[in-house]
């Protein structure tokens, strides 16, 4: 699929039988999933389940041991530069330079991404995430919640068609997390973005994700809409599903043993 023909009918991201082995550990074990344009897919699992490994493969930061990852139909390993113009990423664990001002950071990334009318875009995004008053503040002086919102501004600078968000609300208070979720949903609906979303906050996942993928020890344990998964696991919340998955040793086809 050529990069310019992304539409709602085609998956923007395809992971096919991804395996990643480290000495003595298998981080991903034949993981397969797709992310369609315009949907929010929750990638869930306990710490060490393989979520970040999968995201790093999609970003071209990691070579899979076997299997294939395709973003817009292209391999991230060979086409990072082309893909990166239409994809972005934000993580609670990746920061913008703390010794630069908010506006300076966004200006630099605007130029790196070749953003047209970058001043307007920067102002718009800062307003959107309610941090316009911090524009001339040193990034290192921001609270972690403000930094998270700044990271999201950076992630939306290039109007990405696919957004990879690794625990984007991890450091936010409940009220701010709610605001950020609503903002993300608004943008996602307006622009038909495909979002791969990881979080340990299960009520948040129920609220925001169209579909979820539970992984454990690098394998898919369950996949479907939050409602379907809860039904299959005979629980009322995704949190209970999560606990069942982590505590059970052998789970097959979405049913805990």
């Amino acid at each position, binding site marked *: 699929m050529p990069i310019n023909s992304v539409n709602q009918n085609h998956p923007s991201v395809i992971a096919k039988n991804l395996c*990643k082995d*480290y000495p003595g550990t298998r*981080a991903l074990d034949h993981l397969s999933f797709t992310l369609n344009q315009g949907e929010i897919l929750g990638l869930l699992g306990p710490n060490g389940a393989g979520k*970040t*490994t999968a995201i*790093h493969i999609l*970003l*071209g*930061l*990691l*070579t899979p041991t076997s299997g294939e990852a395709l973003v817009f139909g292209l391999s991230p*390993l060979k086409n*990072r*530069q082309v893909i*990166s*113009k239409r*994809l*972005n*990423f934000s*993580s609670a*664990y*990746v*920061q*913008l*330079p*703390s*010794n*630069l*001002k908010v506006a*300076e950071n966004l*200006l*630099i*990334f605007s*130029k*790196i*991404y*070749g953003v047209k009318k970058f001043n307007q875009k920067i102002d718009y995004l800062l307003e959107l995430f309610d941090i316009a008053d911090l524009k001339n503040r*040193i990034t290192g002086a921001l609270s972690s919640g403000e930094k998270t919102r700044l990271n999201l501004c*950076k992630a939306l600078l290039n109007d990405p068609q696919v957004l990879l968000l690794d625990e984007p609300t991890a450091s936010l208070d409940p009220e701010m997390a709610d605001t950020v979720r609503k903002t993300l949903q608004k943008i996602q609906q307006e622009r038909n973005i495909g979002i791969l979303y990881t979080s340990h906050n299960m009520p948040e996942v129920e609220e925001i994700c169209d579909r979820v993928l539970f992984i454990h020890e690098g394998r898919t344990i369950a996949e479907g809409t939050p409602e379907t998964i809860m039904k299959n696991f005979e629980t009322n919340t995704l949190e209970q599903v999560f606990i069942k998955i982590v505590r059970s040793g052998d789970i097959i086809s979405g049913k805990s043993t």
Partner: protein
Amino acid sequence: MNPALDKPIRTSHVIGEVSESFSRIRAMILRYLFLHKRSLPRTFEIVFWPIMELFVWGFVSVYIQNVSHNTLSKIAMSLINAMIFWDILYRSQQGVSISFIEDIWTQNIVNLLISPLKIWEWVTAAALYGMIKTSLITLILATIAFFLYQFNLVGILQISIIPLIFNLLLFGWALGIFTSSLVIRWGHAAEALIWGVPFLIQPLSAIFYPLSVLPPWLQIISKALPSTYVFEGMRAVIQTGHMPSHYFLVGLGLNLIYFILAGFFFQWMYGKARSSGRLGRLGMD
């Protein structure tokens, strides 16, 4: 497909690519320059160590000149010149490596690695930024040396100063790419090498003494370094007033080899880091 119609499209595509690359390089230089805007200690640090070194070597040179009743004035001249040139080499290496590691320290490196920024654009920006810093330092050192020790850097080396400094910058950048490769592969554990590697080549580059001082077996290694030809060339100019062209040409040839090797080494280490998972964890360990 009509090749005649295809050509202008391809040409405009190439122009677009070049213009995008230029914009990204400019953005990265801007990123490094912003660091100095409000950090006086950072700016001060650039000039502090070179000036201190110049004081030490400058006064050593004055002392040598005095005790030898001016018969060793060319040696004294060589020492001051060598110190300034060593600083150019060291700072150009640091320019590339420190710019690179700065983004690891600030946990920004993943943002850059997933962006459209190409590695060569990144290295070019760091090298150009390093060149700005090096030019500034050289200017300051040359001015201080002129007023304090009556040492005229440009007056002594004349036109030879250009090829000599050019080769120093090239070798510094190649070393910078090499040391950055080590950091990309081993992360923080390899940081000390950024400061250590230049000092590994210092005794071998015949900086403060002629190549002939080294034992024959060490001379073989020394002759494989482009920096040796710069410092030998510098001494030739001081002694005879002109520099034989082979000092520049052999140095340049070696620099090209080191540059290509450093590029391949970076690519190799990048691939290793991508395979081991280190790349995505840079700045987080």
